[in-house]
């Protein structure tokens, strides 16, 4: 069996892996980028719409354009890449078992690994929608691949479940290609995507958005024929008598993403049930020494710009770790999720890290306006940041400024409404 020895093996050639590969190379180590598809870019080649790159390039790029920038750098640096190669297993000693047609089964022996495998989509079966199991039920991402890469239309009359950005983007895409999108159905009382997408993908085309509704049945023996939509109450329970039938031949599901950590599990990486991604410290390192994680495999991101930033940071840190410039000692404090905090990353921070600014990524559970994100240690407030609009669908990135006091105990992060000044 062929063996490859390298400094850093990066699993996944999407924006996180690409950015990490470039950054690790620029920091002077050998890199091997392993990608299962026939080309680099991850999910970006099928995201043909624009809106990417405002953060990093100060330009509005399409997904392929954003990817091409990184791909060009990887080619320029001649970073070793394996395409069409599927990683099957990561052993706890960090050896990687992978397969491809040309070489058979191969063993990669790196000094460090960066996990950048991205996500999968939540399915009909996951959310247990009742009804039949005909052809014509697709997750939005699969439909996007069919339409934009394979050149195939899944159907011509659509209903879309989920008003996240992927669902709304597909509503526009399908309408532009001549299909009819009858409605976008959303269980929450607000859209979980950007307002810009609601306007430019739904309002522009007169596609109705049904808030506080869900699909309670799929009908059709061989192919989808209709879906039954019902209004729901605050507990997401269908309200009897509010059922409406929508005739369609395709149901698209945009009901959430799940970080794809099956390989992480094989390596003994501990996962956080709140993010469904690895538990990391402020070095993006998991509980397994030398295994790092970044991008959507770590937590579902909203903007690819942040995914790429995480990759860049992680590549640099992993390189410095190998060159023994960074030493990761074992003294950590834990981050605890308080009121209305869905999750926070990293879950552990090295005590000495607070001498500099530390970046935290988090999401609130429920939308709230005019709130403070409070950081508390031993019940004492050490920092607060004001947020005018805190939304679960918009990740908060907060840089805790360097601390003069010693942080030696767990940090509680909570969302607290700003007190209204009393009017006299």
């Amino acid at each position, binding site marked *: 069996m062929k063996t490859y020895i390298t400094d850093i093996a990066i699993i996944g050639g999407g924006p996180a892996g690409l950015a990490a590969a470039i950054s690790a190379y620029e920091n002077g180590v050998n890199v091997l980028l392993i990608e299962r598809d026939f080309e680099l870019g991850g999910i970006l080649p099928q995201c043909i719409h624009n809106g990417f790159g405002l953060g990093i390039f100060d330009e509005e790029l399409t997904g392929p354009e954003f990817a091409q920038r990184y791909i060009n750098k990887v080619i320029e640096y001649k970073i070793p890449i394996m395409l069409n190669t599927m990683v099957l297993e990561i052993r706890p000693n960090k050896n990687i078992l992978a397969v491809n*047609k040309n070489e058979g089964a191969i063993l990669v022996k790196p000094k460090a690994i960066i996990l950048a495998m991205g996500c999968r989509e939540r399915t009909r*079966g996951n959310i*247990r929608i*009742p009804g039949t199991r005909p052809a014509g039920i697709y997750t939005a991402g699969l439909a996007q691949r069919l*339409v934009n890469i394979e050149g195939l239309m899944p159907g011509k009359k659509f209903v879309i479940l989920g008003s996240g950005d992927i669902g709304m983007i597909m509503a526009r895409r399908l309408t532009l290609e001549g299909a009819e999108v009858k409605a976008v159905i959303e269980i929450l009382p607000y859209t979980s995507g950007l307002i810009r997408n609601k306007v430019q993908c739904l309002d522009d085309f007169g596609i109705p958005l049904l808030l506080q509704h869900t699909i309670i049945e799929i009908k059709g023996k061989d192919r989808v024929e209709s879906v039954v939509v019902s209004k729901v109450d605050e507990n997401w329970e269908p309200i009897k008598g509010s059922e409406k039938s929508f005739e369609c031949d395709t149901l698209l599901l945009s009901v959430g993403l799940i970080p794809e950590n099956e390989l992480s599990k094989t390596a003994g990486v501990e996962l956080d049930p709140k993010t469904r991604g690895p538990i990391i410290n402020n070095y993006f390192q998991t509980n397994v020494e030398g295994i790092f994680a970044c991008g959507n495999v770590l937590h579902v991101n909203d903007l690819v710009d942040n995914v790429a930033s995480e990759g860049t940071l992680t590549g640099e840190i992993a390189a410095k770790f190998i060159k023994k410039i960074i030493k990761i000692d074992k003294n950590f404090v834990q981050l605890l999720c308080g009121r209305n905090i869905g999750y926070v990353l990293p879950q552990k921070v090295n005590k000495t890290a607070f001498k500099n600014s530390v970046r935290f990524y988090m999401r609130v559970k429920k939308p709230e306006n005019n709130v403070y994100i409070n950081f508390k240690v031993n019940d004492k407030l050490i920092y607060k940041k004001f947020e005018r609009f805190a939304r679960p669908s918009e990740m908060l990135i907060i840089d805790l400024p360097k601390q003069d006091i010693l942080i030696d105990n767990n940090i509680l992060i909570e969302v607290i409404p700003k007190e209204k000044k009393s009017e006299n």
Partner: protein
Amino acid sequence: MEYDIAIIGAGISGAAIARELSKYSVKTILIEKNPSVSMGTTKANSGIIHGGYAAKNGTNKARFNVASLPLFEKVCNDLNVSYSKIGSFVVALEKDQIEKLYELKENGLKNGIKDFKIIEDPKKILKMEPNLNPNVCGVLYCPGAAIISPYELCINLVENAIINGLRFLPDSEVIEIKKEDKFKIITRSGIEIKSNIVINAAGLYADKISSLVGLDYFKITPRKGEYVLFDKNVMKINHILFPVPTKISKGIVVSPTVSNNFFVGPNAKNIDDKEDISCTLDGLKEVIEGGKKLIPNLPLRDAITVFAGLRAVSNNNDFIIEQTEIDGFINVAGIQSPGLSSCLGIAVYVVDILKNIGINLRLKTDFIPTLDKPPHFAYLSPKDKDELIKKDENYGRVICRCETITEAEIRAAINSPLPARTLDDIKFRTRAGMGRCQGGFCTSRIISILCDELGKNPTEITKHGKGSELVIGTTKHLRRDTK
């Protein structure tokens, strides 16, 4: 077309009978209305080989379940079918249910089952099954119960029979049967088949087929059972877990599968429509609640799919396996649970019926009992994987990442003696698409491979046959000027 024996219905009963008959020098045809085998009840059930104690002593159910038990190991070995004797618990969650365990044991002893015992020590039970409801009072433990993939067994039985000379005729719904000197079977598409013997193994429609020759002495009622299937490696379940049974059903089970998933189900509800395999809100709720009784910490977040199947229940609630008033017309009907567990014994018995009515059955000298299948790449050692890829590079391309199924296995299924032609065919033969992403990654790739092997356009590829086309055209076709 003239045959000695025509079997109607390629579910587990028809498949087992076809394979048994393929040992003999008789010309047999297996007629199936769907595009492939195993598309009715056989593909949507619990996949359990029951220990033989539960079916009421004196019934056909008991008789054939018990008769089949010793036959499974060899058949599964020969035909490369996954079969795992993990044993079962019937779980008493209250003191007054223990009595029922003793009743079952009594019945089992009468049926001839010996190797099973009642354990009334909760500590011991929980050591064997740590995630079981800690309120367990006692279990009936039967080590002889096993799990199997029902469609894998059905497919491999038919494939082996085809290799041994069986003619398989899919897409052929039988609409008329005339008895002259032979039987004349006419299908919806106008094909005529003449046969000396007709074996009616038509599952949910066995009553309809029987009435075609004027025999309407029984009725088949569809009884729906819904299931929730869970991901692999999310919870350790070591045995098949039954609640204490009711009058109509063995109850809502929690069981591992041979692919390391586990499921909860089925409930039991009589319905009218034999085509209704939909899942219902109430049914799924019932199934989940039933599952939670046995496994309180059911990891619902890791449910990956839901499905339903229909049991074919006869009005006397037992198997109807007999030569009828019409010479040469044999009914094999009402095969509900433990139908899967009984299929091998039923097949042997049906052959006996044929011998008893004077059919000349000579054993073939060139019968091939084994079935070669491409190796399950996912289970090979790294070294074996490497060698296999070097022999056939298509093993080096993983198409289904959740189940680790390679392009070679998919192409082999399309080129097998029972060729896969649809997405579901690929799914049930290779497991591609059965994992946690439910085809999100592999579907577009499988469509390409099917097009390549079958010389078809993507718009011709279906999920499970005509009418279930996966895509309707190219991306531009709705906007392009039509010329």
